[in-house]
């Protein structure tokens, strides 16, 4: 069992948890992920490691409540425990040797993009962080992102923070204004990552994306996370989760990511009903 030592609500739909997992904390690196199972009846879901404390033996995860498992996870409080917490899995991001990077996060993806910005910054690269949210009221990790970058560009779909537009608008603007990026890291919803890759392809800038695929074991056994990269079948859990975004078959990934969408909506709806009934009692 893995105890939750701290829980923080980042906005209405996103939560940060600090979990006591000393073995995982000892080896965790930026870009890697964990798999957790809340209870005996639960699914195994992958979540990227948002931060870690080797001495304290803790690992931070940030998740968005999208399905039953994340809703269930969010019902746990400080002092409660998660049944299984496995990691660190996947390859660490390769961030060495870059001069000037743009790190792009979309919504919940900012939780994963921000540690990449932090790592790049620590390695001596100049870092522009571009973060996109639907609206101002759901912006998360603003201080952290600011601290991890040289410039932070916060964009909102509805312009409620005064900067209306997509992350790709800010990226294009910076490139057009002369920013000589030698690396772009894009993490967020698949359509966003695809749009960023289409843009950076135009300019010939190397782009790393992080896959958050459907997985079970996370050790290469099930093959559920397979993704076509440069015409080859790769497994996000052992070959990734980072891939060269210009080689990823996004259209296939986007379809695969919806495999259980209907079932997930249904089970999340049922679970929400149950939570509401419990609250009424």
């Amino acid at each position, binding site marked *: 069992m893995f105890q939750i030592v701290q829980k923080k609500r980042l906005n209405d739909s996103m939560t940060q948890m600090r979990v006591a997992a000393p*073995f*995982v904390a*000892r*080896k965790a690196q930026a870009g890697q992920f964990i798999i957790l*199972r809340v209870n005996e*009846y*639960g*699914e*195994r879901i992958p979540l990227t490691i948002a931060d870690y404390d080797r001495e304290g033996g803790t690992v931070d995860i940030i998740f968005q409540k999208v399905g*039953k*498992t994340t809703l269930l996870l969010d019902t746990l409080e400080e002092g409660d425990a998660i*049944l*299984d*917490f*496995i*990691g*660190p*899995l996947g390859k660490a991001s390769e961030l060495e040797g870059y001069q000037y990077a743009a790190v792009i996060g979309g919504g919940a993806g900012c939780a994963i993009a921000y540690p990449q910005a932090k790592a790049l910054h620590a390695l001596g690269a100049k870092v522009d962080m571009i973060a996109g949210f639907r609206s101002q009221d759901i912006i998360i990790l603003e201080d952290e992102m600011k601290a991890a970058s040289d410039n932070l560009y916060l964009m909102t779909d509805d312009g409620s923070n005064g900067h209306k537009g997509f992350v790709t608008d800010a990226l294009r603007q910076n490139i057009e204004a002369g920013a000589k990026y030698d690396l772009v890291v894009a993490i967020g919803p698949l359509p966003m990552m695809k749009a960023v890759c289409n843009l950076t392809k135009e300019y010939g800038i190397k782009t790393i994306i992080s896959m958050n695929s459907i997985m*079970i*074991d*996370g*050790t*290469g*056994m*099930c*093959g*559920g996370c*397979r*993704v*076509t990269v440069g015409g080859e*079948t790769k*497994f996000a859990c*052992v070959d990734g989760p980072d891939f060269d975004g210009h080689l990823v*078959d996004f259209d*296939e990934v986007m*379809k*695969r990511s*919806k*495999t*259980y969408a209907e*079932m*997930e909506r249904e*089970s999340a709806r049922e679970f929400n009903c149950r939570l509401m009934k419990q609250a009424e009692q």
Partner: protein
Amino acid sequence: MPNMTMTKTPMPEQKPDVRNHNFEEVALGYTEEMAVGEAQRCLNCKNKPCVGGCPVMVPIPEFIAHVAKREFEEAYQVLTRATSLPAVCGRVCPQETQCESKCVRGIKGEPVGIGRLERFVADWHMANSKEAPKKSETNGHKVAVIGAGPASLTCAGDLANMGYEVTVFEALHTAGGVLMYGIPQFRLPKEIVQKEIDGLRAKGVTILTDMVIGKVLTLEELFADGFEAIFVGSGAGLPNFMHIPGEGLVGAYSANEFLTRVNLMKAYRPEYDTPIIRPKNAAIVGGGNVAMDAARTAKRLGAENVYIVYRRSEAEMPARAEEIHHAKEEGIEFRLLTNPVAIHGDENGRVTSMECVEMELGEPDASGRRRPIEKKGSNFELPIDCAIIAIGNSPNPLIPTTTAGLEVNRRGCIVADEETMATSLPGVYAAGDAVSGAATVILAMGGGKRAAKSIDEYIKSKS
């Protein structure tokens, strides 16, 4: 006077049209009377050819003689001298190509039902024995076992019996490996596997789950932590695909994923959250036991039509005869000499059909089986909503890629001496699918057993 009946005592089974709608075990097991009667068919040959056919050398006539005398617990004690997983072996071993293929009774008539008797004895012990497994006196030496599948459990059990302090590191949340995630409930109930694992724990074996060795700890770190020898039984990992168009479609599964969702993650039980596509029409590609398991599982999830698509003929199928027989009984349709060339989907990327081509057999290939050749222009469409690829696995790369000096072959299998199971690294032994590529439970157990013996000799030679 031996029972000279020419045929085996039939195994009571659930009726095919009943069992293909449930996940309960197909074979119901012998009664005491049946077991005693079958045991009496054994001639107790002096030269014991059956024992030579067993990868773990179970003293077969000896345990059967006890059964014939109704000494079931004594029979169990004989069995466990050789195998730590008798309830498993009795169910999933390919006896027809091993012990039973050597049985003298098989020359005229059917061999003794050795597997069925083994299963009976193990089940009888689980149901009737109150004796807790004995903990051997510890010798103070620590051994790490990586993985908790059949090779590892055997190695751990043997080492514990010798007095070693054994710690098993399992990557998944449950020990058992392929016995838990791969082989379905209806062929090997998970409660049985769990009992065998509990027995190992009672013997003093420590089992740590959620530990992905290679990631969370390296072999080097395990040695530094005081383990004197390490056994690697990390299994066959990466599922193979055909590399034909459409394998990325929604509804295309590896057999590993499909079976893991159902077996380990219990997607067939409503109280579990695991999602799975419940197909109407499923095609399973492959001709091994895993393909049969996937097909019969798809049927049990409610599929109307389930096809086995196999490019050779039935004679070349690697699956056990019994699995093929059971699958046919349950209404699985065999599309033999048929090879998929593409999987097609709709605008949402969901599988709608499998395009296949007919094959014919040519000259034998390197494997000794006749090579299938495409019949030009014979393409046809099989309408399906689920395609399950069951054409084998490659070894898991996590340990070889994180262990300097651990030699692997061209296929990524760990190189180990066939007799001692020693790898290229001193103190590191390996067996099972990680060494052989996808094979059987019992072969893995045989390797684990030899490795335990070598580890004992290795540690003794050092101290």
